């Protein structure tokens, strides 16, 4: 079956979720990926939306984090101080899914402003739950389509911390979570180098060349020694994803 880069990205993201994990999900690509995983190989995964809905099982993808579908299909609904203090800060979230308007080579994310804070060219929505997800989920998956204006040398505002200046600068701050383990794009996969924490191209999607990735990134990208090629979407993955989007 033919597929779009966007579909490939969502399916690759879904494959990262192992069954039984608790996953803090945002709206958009993360929600599509997490629900796809739940319908395929991870039926026992626990999806948590920041509205306080825990263990939701939506049939259709929600527009907002608080659609009635999420409330009605959840195992329980908890108040906001509880979702952030007991669940996220209390170390009960395995995976946090994040995106942003800008990302740098150490996977720090900006979702606050483009330009200066006091006089921005573009005012973005802001932090929401992202900074705490980034610092407290045991592991963070980032999904972002590659674009030169998004993958930049220096982000305009650190909304959510990745590996900060790289190396041990994140662990020095004593965060609960180990940080981003993967950046899933529409052309391939980047992962942090174990030592320097700099994002490195480790996998490409079928038919994509290394240069195409570099062309869409604003810094000189590190490339792994043996870049692997990711398996293309299987028919059942594509069918289920399209079904979810149509519902």
């Amino acid at each position, binding site marked *: 079956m033919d597929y779009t880069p966007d579909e490939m990205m969502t399916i690759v993201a879904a494959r990262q979720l192992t069954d039984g994990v608790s996953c803090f999900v945002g709206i958009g690509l993360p929600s599509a990926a997490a629900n796809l995983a739940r319908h395929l190989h991870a039926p026992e995964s626990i999806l948590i939306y920041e*509205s306080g*809905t825990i263990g939701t099982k939506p049939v259709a993808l929600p*527009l907002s984090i608080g659609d*009635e579908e999420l409330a009605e299909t959840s195992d329980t609904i908890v108040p906001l101080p509880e979702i952030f203090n007991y669940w996220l800060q209390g170390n009960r979230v395995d995976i946090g899914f994040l995106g942003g308007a800008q990302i740098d080579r150490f996977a720090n994310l900006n979702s606050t402003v483009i330009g200066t804070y006091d006089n921005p060219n573009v005012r973005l929505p802001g*932090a929401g739950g992202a900074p705490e997800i980034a610092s407290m989920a045991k592991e963070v998956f980032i999904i972002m389509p590659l674009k030169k204006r998004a993958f930049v040398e220096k982000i305009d505002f650190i*909304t*959510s911390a990745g590996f900060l200046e790289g190396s041990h600068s994140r662990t020095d701050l*004593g*965060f609960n979570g180990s940080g981003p383990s993967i950046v899933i794009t529409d052309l391939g996969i980047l992962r942090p180098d174990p030592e320097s924490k700099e994002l490195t191209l480790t996998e490409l999607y079928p038919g994509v060349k290394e240069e195409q990735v570099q062309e869409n990134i604003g810094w000189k990208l590190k490339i792994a020694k043996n870049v692997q090629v990711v398996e293309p979407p299987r028919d059942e993955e594509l069918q289920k994803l399209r079904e979810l989007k149509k519902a």
Partner: protein
Amino acid sequence: MAEIASLQEAVQTLIADHESVALEGFTHLIPQGAGHEIIRQGKKDLTLIRLTPDLIYDQLIGMGLVKKLIFSWGGNPGVGSLHRFRDAVEHQWPRELELEEHTHAGLANRYVAGASGLPFMVMKGYQGTDLLKNTKNAAVIDCPFTGEKVAAVAAINPDTTIIHAQQADRKGNVQLWGITGIQKEAAFSAKKVIVTVEEVVDKIEPRPNAVFLPSFTIDAVCKVPGGTYPSYALDYTKRDNQFYKKWDSISRDRNTFMNWMERHVLQTKNTEEFLRSLEGVVT
């Protein structure tokens, strides 16, 4: 004790110009009808507080009634930007908007401190982000017991909190359920509390896990059925996702926005008329 009042009367007597107001609701139970009444009465120079300023805050900002916004995420959920909010920050239209911004957890904990009568709450987070440099109500402190670095967020105590609930009884007790977000903390941290409700019943049937606010914690209860539209009240109304999408084009252009506000908010007397004015226009 709560008085059962008209929304018009409650807004008139309990909200003054230059005060701080929190109209809370996390996607669910957003008190839009009360926001419209504030716009109709033209309350000025308000400081608005809310984790997720959405369409009703976009409207209040676009109408020039807001001096300062204290918030943690300002977008149209699942759709994109709040254009009136952006226009105010990017181009100071119709006036400059002062911002104080937090994370959801940070602002939620500010309400918890306010509701608990504490000067601040302690949490993890904020460290390593640029939010700390730009927000005076969050600071990194040392834990007095372990020496660990933690974030402190100052208590917030709105002059008035407005929330929407499914039910009240005739004594002014209130019950809300479903996604209840930060409403309990927003109410308990406020000096004055207004609750709009879908229905006033003779006797509230207690629901497990619902939020119950006794009458003595509230100043005014107003019956405003449909008062969350386009948000929803679980078991009473449905979220109108189409309207959230449509707001993008209504709010993008200043004139389209002003005309819409004139026709649907300023020229209607109350929520019932507002909802009727949308019939055939929206859905």
